[in-house]
């Protein structure tokens, strides 16, 4: 069992490492694609060399970033097989489809048209080139949609049923999988956060140009485009984030409770604006939840349900079986201890089904099938030993959520201020070094914000690979944990080395191109 847990932990660590590295590059691709697309569209309409230069400058940075995003992406797809082979069988019938659609529809679009984007300036007409730039971005966005559909399905498994004959889940409704409320919210929230990140990057780099007094016109031009994209991005990211939280309160209430560090909920539940968690608190003791807590009365009830007086369950409430339904009603459901017992009954019924099938005893198979169906919704709990295993890492989820929300709020203010300055007080933006440094330092902040969002989403759903159906420890491959430790460090070294190279190339390109006259560009 210890080796099993070590394998689970290292497999998780390897997946998290790959995902975190991958997410350093993907949002910049999504954001820059839109910004570069707008810039090239203006060039297409005006045929003004300065817009060509601006487009080409940001396109160069897009290309450097794109390559390493592709490199980390391939590992992620195949890790479902290499490290989570049980998962791949148990739900492959549902989960594989979005990945295949992503490959057929999105990846080929990206990889075909990016070659035109970079090498086609002299080989194809300007209209064809512009279309290729937009199609590259569209490909990246469609790719994001399908992989987020896949991720959302893990958090909210719908559109399928369990088939004991095959010992796996089979899909019943593709539209339920592709258009679930979790998937749609997550898609818009994630892609729009990519726009925000891309915009902060462009504004931050442009601010460095202003600081150095190089290519000021290009910098101001870029800031204007980026701040509109960024403002649209952050407003819609906050809007869809609110939608996400409401969905989470219904389909993953344990995640919401962990995001708030809430153990015992109440009607008219307040929300913690700033808090320090008590590190000794857990679901099995009665210690205080916070060492320090500044909260807004009734805030969580309102944000989660739209009703300031509604009940929001905490971690212990959920363990005791108290939940809110899809309609917002509070119900006494099955406690986690009972779910574990019922899940184990489902496991025993599945064993009985298998034995009966091998004997060809159809009557026994029917009895076992009925028993499986009765308790299948608790199937995943059958793998747990105690209710506390179903509680995610509360401090990391709590703090990551706060980092994301706080920085998200900051970026809303950031874009409003930058937009005002770039249109009304251009000289302040061009001359004030403090402002320029704030913009530059906002670049790392936006990455922290973006990664914190994913940490909230993914840590908050632990221990589930598929919510309620399969915990991580049942989803793994049968490989020695030492092999996974070794590949973890191989990946860590390679990704880190490539990241350092990427940053070095990126800084050098920015510095080198800043000394050239970007406005004087040729096809």
């Amino acid at each position, binding site marked *: 069992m210890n080796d099993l847990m070590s394998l689970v932990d290292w497999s998780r660590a390897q997946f998290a490492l790959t995902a975190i590295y991958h997410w350093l590059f993907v949002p910049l691709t999504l954001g820059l694609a839109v910004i570069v697309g707008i810039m090239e569209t203006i060039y297409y309409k005006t045929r003004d060399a300065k817009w060509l230069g601006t487009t080409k400058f940001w396109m160069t940075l897009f290309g450097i970033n794109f390559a390493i995003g592709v490199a980390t992406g391939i590992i992620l797809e*195949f890790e479902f097989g290499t490290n989570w082979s049980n998962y791949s069988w148990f739900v492959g019938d549902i989960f*594989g*489809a979005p990945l295949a659609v992503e490959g057929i*529809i999105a990846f*080929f679009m990206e990889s075909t048209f990016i070659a035109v984007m970079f090498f086609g300036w002299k080989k194809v007409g300007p209209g064809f080139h512009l279309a290729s730039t937009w199609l590259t971005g569209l490909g990246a966005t469609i790719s994001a949609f399908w992989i987020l559909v896949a991720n959302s399905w893990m958090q909210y498994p719908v559109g399928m049923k369990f088939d004991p004959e095959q*010992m796996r889940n089979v*899909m019943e409704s593709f539209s339920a999988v592709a258009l679930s409320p979790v998937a749609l919210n997550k898609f818009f929230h994630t892609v729009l956060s990519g726009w925000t990140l891309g915009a902060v990057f462009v504004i931050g780099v442009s601010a460095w140009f202003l600081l150095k007094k190089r290519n000021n016109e290009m910098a101001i031009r870029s800031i204007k485009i980026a701040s509109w994209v960024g403002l649209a991005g952050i407003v819609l990211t906050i809007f869809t984030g609110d939608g996400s939280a409401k969905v989470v309160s219904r389909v993953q209430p344990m995640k919401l409770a962990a995001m708030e560090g809430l153990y015992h909920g109440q009607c008219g539940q307040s929300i913690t604006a700033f808090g320090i968690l008590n590190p000794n608190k857990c679901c099995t003791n009665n210690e205080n939840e916070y060492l320090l807590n500044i909260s807004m009365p009734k805030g969580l009830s309102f944000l989660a349900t739209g009703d300031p007086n509604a009940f929001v369950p905490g971690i212990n409430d959920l363990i005791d079986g108290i939940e809110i339904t899809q309609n917002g009603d509070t119900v006494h459901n099955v406690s986690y201890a009972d779910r574990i017992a019922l899940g184990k009954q489902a496991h025993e019924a599945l064993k009985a089904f298998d034995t009966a099938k091998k004997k060809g005893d159809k009557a026994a198979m029917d009895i076992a099938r009925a028993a499986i169906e009765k308790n299948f919704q608790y199937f995943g709990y059958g793998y747990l030993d105690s209710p506390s295993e179903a509680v995610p890492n509360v401090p990391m989820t709590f703090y990551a959520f706060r980092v994301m929300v706080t920085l998200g709020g900051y970026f809303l203010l950031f874009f409003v201020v930058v937009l005002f300055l770039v249109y009304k007080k251009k000289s302040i933006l061009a001359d004030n070094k403090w402002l320029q440094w704030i913009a530059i330092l906002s670049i790392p902040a936006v990455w922290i914000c973006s990664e914190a969002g994913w940490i909230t989403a993914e840590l908050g759903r632990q221990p589930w690979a598929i919510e309620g159906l399969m915990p991580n420890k049942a989803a793994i491959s049968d490989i020695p944990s030492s092999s996974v430790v070794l590949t973890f460090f191989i990946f860590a070294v390679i990704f880190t080395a490539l990241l350092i190279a990427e940053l070095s*190339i990126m800084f050098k390109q920015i510095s080198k191109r800043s000394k050239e006259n970007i406005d004087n560009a040729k096809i």
Partner: protein
Amino acid sequence: MTYEFLQQYWWLLISILGALLVFLLFVQGGQTLLFEAGDDMRRTMMVNSLGRKWEFTFTTLVTFGGAFFASFPLFYSTSFGGAYWLWVLILLGFVLQAVSYEFRSKPRNIFGTRTYDIFLLLNGAFGCILLGVAVATFFFGSEFTIEKASLVNSSAPVISQWAPTHGLEAIFCWKNLCLGFVVLFLARTLAAMYFMNNIDDESTFERCRKALLVNGLIFVVLFLVFLGIVLTSDGLQTNPDGTFTSVPFKFFHNYFTMWWVLVILLLGVVLVLYAFARSVWSKHFKYGIWYAGLGTVLVVLTLFWVVGYNATPYYPSLLNPASSLTIYNSSSSYFTLSVMSWVSLFIPFVLAYIIYVWRAMNRKPITPEEMSDDSHKY
């Protein structure tokens, strides 16, 4: 559409993706020729010629994986999680490739151009060999067992178990390695023909013609050896009750039972040999890549068909034949295959725009002048 039809249809799509992938491995083959370029300008032209195509190979590999996952998830689950080291080493090579084109000639790239070129060499050589090894296990089997009831064994819940070497045993099997080297020398042969087509430079053309002669001959010899091994090997036969029986000369029988597959194999071989011979003998023939490419696709298609069709388990288990995977016992459900079949109607459209863009971009071959002039080159 019956379930059986959909399962066969999806094996056809997998074989098409696999065949296109093997053709597109000319990029990897080309990467192994970079160190034989002779001078920097020639190497730059070769890198840039490949650099406009590498994403097709990469994307085809990823889509091949995604399509296999969607259509035959039990293979994905068994092979990737079992032959761990084989797949991880393949992936590592492709990670290194993905950054190397973009980074190799950029200022302050930390590791220097030569390091990135070595990455390309590693991906080129080991990518081909290891992908060949992976495909060879379809013929010669792997050391795994599957017991789905393990799913509810809480202390060891994994349904498939693999030999403790986890894929290393497949890499060090000489029969698998034979196909690995066939793929490597095929990729080098195709790459030489690709450069002859895509780079407008007399000295590069002549150098590639010489490389083609050597690599083409090695490829032909290795391919014949591999074909001989396959045609004389025993293979498993799926019985009507789902059990398996070992049958001598199974793949030989498959070629003759499905006579049209044999015709396609011979046609493919003739096309590759024609492309090879004409490119070597004729001083100005530069279209060999298209004949050899089509021939390669046809030959690889037949290899997939003889391992998957005619009651043949495409992923035989050496430890317990009853665990072997067929296109029927490892596929997705009827519903999923139906949905995915609708999605597959996009494939002709995707191929159409790829061909359109390829032609638009290749209208002018790469020249030394372009390399001296281009602002975005690798």
